């Protein structure tokens, strides 16, 4: 009996001493991710060591539990919200899968924080885009991409991709296509065009250059309604998004909020020797700066995402020479937003054959036009028109250089094919499941963590919420062989001992 007990004791002693070593080897092996793929899941039942809770907490509801079931969920009440995930190794791709519910929001997107000069540098991709889901075209879908065809021409996505270099009538949404946008048969203009609509604050626009100089003259005034300096930076980006020139315009010298509006100044923005292609100009300033006139020789000028029209009596205290004429806008923005800060901006706005009434200040109004392109009629100005897309002050100045890099669906009059890596979410037991993939080449990794954002641009205005059931992050890289593992281990130890 005593010998049996002694043997048992020896057995347990060996097991207890060996287990920590085995466990350590298992944990290191798991951390190395030798298979190349690892997944982390956060289901709100308890805090996860690998995926943080959604934050900030004041934009989230409490965690709720489904009665009598071991199912937990939490709602997003305001956007955006963020979460971080641990990165045990260096990975090439991250796939984020979210189980959620969505009633009426047209767009929900996931963003990955990338490296850049700004702290907020998110690359957003659609988790759900109802506008695209409603596109009534033939659809071919695989696990990671989809092809929409106006008429059924291709039997497979690969067939289309083989022939795409010969095509000019296709667009790419959220799909990496290495193709430079050019306008065939473009001829530069010798005459100046003058846009005398007064615009307020920061604006961005595209223009096109071929065998000509970039030639703009901006007439600006500072309304001086706020304290401090009001500087203007004019930035020029090429079609790769690279900043190639920046011009700084100093303040008018009047910095008190009791100072009158400044006299108008002409700012020349002239650049020679540019290669053919689309260019983006950003007028980076506060709402104190008003653009009274834009004069250019360029044929095309298309505004990006925002137009703030201010030819309205609400600004008569600053400017006495505003022309209170209605404004017509040509737009291909699929979901339009409107906002006014003054009662003088309350009005009825015509959008093709639809009308939207702006009857409250400091409130966002939204409309999805039933057809595109859109001709807007804005009788009183004093309105901010916004959305994800492009618009111009006349249709002959409009062009779309984003066609191979769309940020949202747009006017597809000249397009017969749309390639995208957006896959419509699937519905299971009342919960949508959507997936978004990211390349991690340019990801910002801080303290060995990736940061993601969940955004729904209209969530705050519509007082909606997004219940979330589960977040799953799958990280992938090249598998690690045993020899590579030893090389990595030795180089890691060497690095730590240095």
């Amino acid at each position: 009996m005593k010998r049996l007990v002694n043997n048992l004791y020896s057995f347990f002693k060996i097991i207890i001493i060996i287990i920590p070593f085995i466990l350590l080897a298992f944990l290191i092996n798991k951390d190395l991710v030798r298979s190349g793929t690892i997944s982390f899941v956060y289901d709100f039942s308890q805090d996860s060591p690998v995926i943080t809770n959604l934050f900030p907490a004041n934009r989230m509801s409490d965690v709720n539990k489904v009665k009598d079931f071991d199912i937990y969920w939490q709602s997003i009440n305001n956007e955006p919200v963020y979460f971080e995930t641990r990165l045990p190794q260096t990975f090439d791709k991250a796939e984020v899968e979210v189980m959620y519910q969505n009633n009426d929001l047209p767009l929900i997107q996931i963003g990955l924080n990338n490296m850049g000069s700004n702290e907020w540098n998110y690359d957003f991709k659609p988790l759900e885009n109802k506008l695209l889901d409603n596109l009534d075209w033939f659809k071919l879908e695989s696990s990671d991409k989809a092809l929409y065809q106006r008429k059924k021409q291709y039997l497979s996505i690969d067939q289309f991709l083989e022939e795409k270099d010969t095509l000019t009538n296709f667009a790419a949404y959220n799909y990496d296509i290495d193709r430079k946008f050019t306008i065939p048969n473009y001829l530069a203009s010798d005459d100046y065009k003058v846009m005398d609509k007064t615009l307020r604050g920061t604006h961005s626009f595209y223009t096109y250059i071929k065998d000509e100089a970039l030639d703009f003259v901006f007439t600006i005034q500072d309304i001086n309604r706020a304290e401090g300096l009001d500087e203007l930076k004019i930035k020029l980006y090429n079609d790769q998004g690279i900043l190639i020139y920046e011009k700084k315009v100093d303040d008018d010298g009047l910095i008190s909020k009791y100072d009158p509006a400044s006299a108008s100044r002409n700012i020349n923005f002239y650049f020679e020797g540019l290669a053919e292609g689309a260019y983006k100009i950003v007028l980076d300033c506060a709402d104190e700066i008003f653009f009274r006139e834009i004069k250019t020789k360029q044929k095309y000028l298309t505004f990006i995402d925002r137009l703030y029209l201010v030819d309205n009596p609400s600004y008569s205290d600053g400017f006495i020479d505003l022309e209170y004429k209605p404004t017509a806008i040509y737009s291909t923005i699929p979901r339009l937003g409107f906002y006014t800060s003054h009662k003088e901006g309350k009005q009825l706005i015509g959008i093709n054959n639809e009308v939207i009434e702006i009857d409250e200040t400091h409130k966002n109004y939204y409309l999805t036009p039933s057809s595109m392109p859109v001709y807007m009629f804005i009788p009183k100005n004093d309105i901010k028109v916004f959305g994800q897309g492009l618009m111009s002050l006349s249709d002959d100045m409009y062009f779309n250089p984003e066609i191979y890099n769309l940020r949202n669906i747009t006017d597809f009059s000249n397009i017969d094919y749309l390639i995208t890596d957006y896959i419509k979410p699937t519905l299971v037991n009342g919960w949508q499941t959507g997936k978004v993939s990211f390349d991690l080449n340019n990801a910002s990794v801080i303290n060995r963590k990736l940061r993601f954002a969940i955004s729904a641009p209209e969530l705050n205005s519509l007082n909606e919420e997004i219940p979330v059931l589960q977040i799953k992050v799958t990280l992938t890289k090249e598998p690690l062989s045993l020899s590579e593992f030893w090389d990595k281990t030795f180089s890691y130890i060497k690095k730590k001992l240095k």
Partner: protein
Amino acid sequence: MRKRLLNNLGQLILNIFKILFPVSVITFIIYFIIENFKVGIISNYFDMHYLLLIALVSGFFLLMFNHKKNSYLPYKKLLSIILTLLIIFISFQYLQNIEKMRYFISLLIGLATYIIINLYPSKYD
């Protein structure tokens, strides 16, 4: 016969706890050091509080039931100090929601633990 079987079983369990206690404490310290070299290598996949729990349970068992004077284990005071520190560490971790108050409350819990352990009469005190 039955009494001898129970005695032997009891002695076996106690001997297992005698190994379990130092192994769990040393493993926790080593894992803690490794975790400091690379955050997440342990904690991503394994909750180290389980090791602390094993150390606590085995430590208390030894205190309550190990009355052999010539035991090679640390003296009762040293053992009680180790257990007190573990309790303070665990309560500090789990009381994160109450922020600054947790410093005070975890110390209070540790002190109460130490007093209770040392009030428990030992045959050889």
